[in-house]
Structure formats: C-alpha cells, structure tokens
C-alpha cells in the first residue's frame, strides 16, 4: 500500500446525528420506536426522523399543560427576553440551518441563507411583541356607569400547531413564535417531508432559557399525530396551517368537541411578507374586569 491510498482511507468519517423529538425540555425518541426516512428534494437520504405516535402526542400535551402556568404567568418582559435569547442561539447556528433548509427545500446556499435570515428576523420581531400586544389589543372601556372596566388579552392555553408543509423553517417559525409570544404553550407537528429544521429548532430551544414544555416538537405523519391532538380535551386551540383541505375539515370537526379555537389554513404565497398580528390574536382570549369606581353620583359621594 502506498502512502497515497493510505491517506484516502484515513479521510475522516463524519458523525451523523440521531434526530430526536423535543418534549418537556427533553429529547426522547418516539415511544413507538419508529423512524421514517427523510431525504432531500433529489431523493438522497438525509436522516431517520422519529415517527411520533398518539402516545407521544399525549405526552406532549401533558408537558405543554404543565408549562402553561409558569410561561403564561411570566412577565411579558421576561418572555421577550427569552424569545430574544432564542434568536441569539439561532444566529449562532445559522450555518447549520442554512444547510438543513437548503436540503429540505432544494434551495441554493444563498437562497437558503435568505430564508434563514428572514426566519431569525421574524423571531426577533415576535420577541418584541410580547410586551406590546396587550396595549394594542386591550384597553379601558368607557362604560356608561360608575365602573372601572378593563379588557386585557390572555393566552388561550395549549395550542397544537400543524407547521406548514412546504416552508420548513420560515413557515415553521412564523406559526410557532406568535403562539408562544403571547404566553401560550405549543405542540408543534413538524413538516412531514422536511422535519429536520424543526427538530434542530428544538435543540435551540433547549439552550435558550425557554422553560421545558413551552414548545414541544413532534415529527412523523401529520394526519396521524394531529388526530388525537384535535380531539384532545386538554388542548385549547389548533392551527391547521399544515393540513390539506380534507384533513383540515376532519380536524375542525374533531376540534368542535371541546370548542377549540381553530385557525383554518390560510393560503400563504410568501412567508416573508409582513405577518400582521392575526396569528397572535387568534390564540388570545379577552378578559374584561369590572369594578365600581365610587364616582360621585347625582346623589352625592359614594366612596
């Protein structure tokens, strides 16, 4: 053997990553023990992703419910800080996501980089919303009587998010960030064909001060995972972004059973366009609190 062939044989073998779910701040494999093959747009194998089961979905609900009190009760300023921290971690992992998005969506490196940059900027945008949305959609009501009356938004609870199928990262973040910015906790079903950016996003969350359970990421067959979540009595809302028309209708019917808030699939041509506030308000309740003011009435002092 010559030195030359020796060198080729010793070229470093790369380390593959075992992609795992992100549930309750931990990285479990699917309870089912199943995986499915994920390939790039040319059909080249990229990795095996966990194929989540109904049990994984139910575990995610438990984790999301457990996290809800702390997350919704945190100050909006604190939530904003944590969301911004996520953006910091995303920025540091920019290269990894460019690579994954290029593979997932068949984009050139530079187009993928644009997507990733838009995604990080989108995350920063939502980080800034946490302590402003209440001022924009809440307020005092001038009732005709001696009452102080204030309407404020509150998160609806545990939200299931079917991430868009095509836009594996920008679309994903565009539907996840508004849900948690307002204090909800989320169970995210990643794009079925391109789940890797979503699973890697879980790794970012784990290193971003985001409390475990606030976002839970599942990969697998969208219809299979979504069905028990749409019917789950402890899920408060569902975003059907990643469902086709037939699946969306089926899930909306199931969601009626406990009157979940449903965000129907909205056609999105361009995920980089200004998203507006609708994805935040879709998962907010309005609470109106009344109290007597003790205002001077016609008959004199009442306080």
């Amino acid at each position: 053997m010559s030195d030359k062939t020796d060198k080729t044989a010793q070229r470093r073998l790369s380390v593959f990553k075992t992609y795992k779910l992100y549930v309750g701040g931990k990285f479990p494999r699917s309870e089912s023990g199943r995986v499915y093959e994920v390939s790039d747009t040319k059909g080249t194998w990229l990795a095996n992703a966990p194929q989540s089961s109904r049990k994984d979905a139910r575990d995610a609900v438990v984790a999301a419910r457990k996290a809800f009190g702390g997350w919704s009760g945190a100050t909006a300023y604190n939530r904003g800080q944590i969301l911004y921290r996520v953006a910091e971690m995303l920025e540091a992992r920019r290269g990894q996501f460019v690579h994954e998005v290029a593979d997932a969506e068949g984009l050139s490196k530079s187009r993928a980089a644009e997507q990733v940059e838009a995604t990080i900027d989108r995350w920063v945008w939502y980080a800034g919303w946490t302590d402003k949305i209440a001022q924009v959609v809440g307020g005092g009501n001038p009732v005709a009587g001696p009452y102080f009356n204030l309407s404020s938004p509150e998160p609806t609870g545990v939200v299931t998010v079917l991430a868009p199928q095509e836009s594996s990262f920008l679309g994903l973040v565009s539907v996840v960030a508004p849900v948690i910015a307002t204090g909800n906790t989320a169970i995210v079903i990643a794009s079925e064909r391109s789940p890797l950016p979503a699973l890697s996003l879980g790794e970012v969350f784990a290193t971003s001060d985001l409390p475990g359970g606030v976002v839970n990421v599942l990969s697998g067959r969208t219809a299979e995972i979504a069905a028990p979540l749409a019917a789950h009595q402890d899920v408060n809302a569902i975003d059907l972004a990643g469902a086709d028309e037939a699946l969306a209708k089926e899930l909306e019917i199931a969601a009626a059973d406990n009157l979940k808030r449903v965000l129907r699939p909205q056609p999105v041509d361009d995920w980089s366009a200004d998203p507006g506030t609708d994805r935040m308000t879709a998962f907010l309740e309005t609470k109106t609190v009344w109290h007597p003011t003790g205002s001077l009435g016609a008959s004199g002092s009442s306080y």
Partner: protein
Amino acid sequence: MASVFEYAPAPESRSVVDIAPSYGLFIDGEFVEAADGKVFKTVSPSTEEVLSEIAQAGEADVDRAVRAARTAFGKWSALPGSERAKYLFRIARIIQERSRELAVLETLDNGKPIKETRDADLPLVAAHFFYYAGWADKLDHAGFGPSPRPLGVAGQVIPWNFPLLMLAWKIAPALATGNTVVLKPAETTPLSALFFADICRQAGLPKGVVNILPGYGDTGAALVAHPDVNKVAFTGSTAVGKQIARTVAGSRKKLTLELGGKGANIVFDDAPIDQAVEGIVSGIFFNQGQVCCAGSRLLVQESVQDELLESLKRRLSTLRLGDPLDKNTDIGAINSAEQLSRITTLVERGEAEGAERWSPDCELPTSGYWFAPTLFTNVTQAHTVARDEIFGPVLSVLSFRTPEEAVAKANNTPYGLSAGIWTEKGSRILAVAGKLRAGVIWSNTFNKFDPTSPFGGYKESGFGREGGRHGLEAYLDVR
C-alpha cells in the same frame, strides 16, 4: 309572608302594545307567509295565553331570505359608512321612542319582570345601536387594518332569555360593518324581533338588509348550513354550539359562539356582606337565572358562610314572585314549559344526590310556568347542580378556605364565561381576577353590561367577543 314588604299591585298597562293575531316572516322588507304555510303559536309564559300565531320559516324561506340579504349586500356594503351610521342612529332613536311598548311586549312574550325589560333590556338595546352606529364611519380606526371589509351575509341565531337585547348585540355590529343579516329568533320569543322588523321599515332601512325568520331549531340549522351565508353568530347552549361548529367545519364561514356558563361568585371573608348578598341575588335571580353568565355557583369563604347564608335567606324571603307586568315584581315566569321541566329535573337530581334544598315561603301562581328561588347547600364539586348549567333561579353554595382553593374550584368547570369576586382587598381582586379562566369578571358587582365592553367566554363557553371594539372583529375580514 305578609309583612311590610306586602305591596299593592302596580301592573303596567298592556294597552301600550298592540299585538296582531298573526305575523309573517320578514323577508326583503315585507312580511310574508312561510312557503309551506306552517305556523306556530307563541304564548305568554306567565299566563299561558296565546299571544299570536307566527309563520314558521322552512328551508325554502331560509333560502329566500339569504338571497334577499345577498342582493342587498352589494349596495349596503358600498354605502359610505356615514350613511350606514345614520340608519343605525335612526333605529336607536326609534327604539327609544317605542321603548315602553317594546318593554311590555318583551315581558308578555318572555315572562321576565317589567322592571328588567324597562330598566335593563331596552336601555341597553338602544345603547348598542347608538354605540355601533358611531363605528360605521370609523372602521379604519378600529385596529383591524386600514380598510377592513365586511364578510357578506350574516346568519344569526339568538336565544329566548334576552330576545331583543341579543338581537341588538347581533344586528348592530353586523350592519355597522356593512354586512346584511338573516336572524332567527327563538321559537318561544319571536315577537320583539318582528316588532324590530317594523322599526327597520320606519327607519327606511333598505329592503333585504335585515331579514327575520321565526322558527325552531331546524330553521336555525338550515340557516347555519346555507352555503351562501358568510358569517354565523350563535348564542345558546353549548351542545348546539358544538353542533354548529361541526356544521361550519371546512367552510370559509366565520363563526362566533356565545354559549353556556356556570359562573362562580366568590365571596371572601372581608367582603361587605350586604353588598355581596345583593350581588349574589342579581347574579343568579336576575331574569329568573336564565342568563348564561349567571353566578350560579356561590363560593363562600368558610369563616363567613353561616353569616352570609343567613343574610341571603333573609333577602330571598323578600323577593316578590308573580305577575311580570307588575312593577314590584322581582321574579317573573320561567320562559317555557320545557325550560321549567329541565330546571325541575336538575333540581330533583340535586336533592337525590344529597344536596340540601331551600326556598323561601313562596306562593306560585296557578297558571303559567313558575319556579321558586332555590338554594342548594352541602354541595360538592361532583354534584350535578355544581357542574351542569341549570338556566333557572337555582344557586349552588360551596365553601372554600384559601384564595387558592377558591380559584381552583372556580376554574373546575368546562365553562369559562363569567365570575364574581367580593373582597375589600384590591390586591386580592387583581390576583384572583388574573387567575380566573373566564371572559367577564365582576369585582364587587355582578351582571353589569355595556355596549362598549366586550363580552364572551373562555373554554366551552364559546369564542369571539360581542360588544366594544372587539365585537367588530366578528363581522370583519381581518385576515
């Protein structure tokens, strides 16, 4: 209970209202018969007297009304907001002018006391039209983008507990935002909606903008399912709300639901007891308890339970039940024989499950549908009377020791519409209000309403808000 509270009768004259022997459907600006000629009778719940015979809308009538509303939509939505506003202001004024007539009418058809229709319902009905009239030309400033668009034809189904007020909650924002309306009033209380149709004619509202279709549940179902309806608004039971949600699934129809409730009225030991008692009484005995946001679960801190219950029972003994047209009447008739039987069944179940039933000495009239104000003590969270919405003058009393326990018990329900908090401590009000999962929270007061104030529930009490700026969203394309 002859006492100082024995008042001489003071009945309101019913001569101010002229009820015709029969009414048609109101479609495209005209009163018409149902296509299949069907009619039903509406009776006065306090006397069982037949008030009128009403055309009953079927599927063909629904289709006709939706088509009329669709045709009217083009011109109505294209009107400058300032013109739509003037129509709504006209309607508001005519309601004020005719409020005595409408109050008496509502009391006759619904069974609720005249002092409630006169002093609560009618002023609020007019106020809702005034409030939303002013929005019609200011929608660009409502926070839903620079040029929010109406949705189209709104199909609206309303209940019998506040017939005219629920009509106002539905129709005023719909018209202000440029939608046209097909509204189905409840089968037991169709009259005030038909009188409203006449008000629309007096106001010169263009034909087809408002259509009124009296009928039963199947009429409502046909309206909700009609393919050319763009928006569905429903107030009523949670069971029907779920059915409607299934019906509109997969369509583009925008949906808002105001459903049932099992509101907790929480009294802490530092609350002013006399004021709390008044709040508890208005919370559950207003409108005979037939209120979705009623405070039907009293949660009282253990240390003041005996004192509070004694005061409450004393107060209940002074409530006057009887002729709803009498100005002194506090408790009127239950709206229908069906509702009375539902209340009776649930109360019997409460007794069978071991809760302790109490009512003041109370003579019930011999004709009509009546139920005495009722208290249940020794109630646990598992009891039916603590879980199911009774929609009648029945209060279930539970106790608690700590604020945490009060919050946990208050939230232990699939509903989330209303709650009350009684305490002198401001920080406790804010802390408890923050933790309650309910859309409307009254602190040191109860059952207050105002058109500027959004109303609606969490969880299985439905979604969307009515009233205020928030209420506009239900009728606008805000995507």
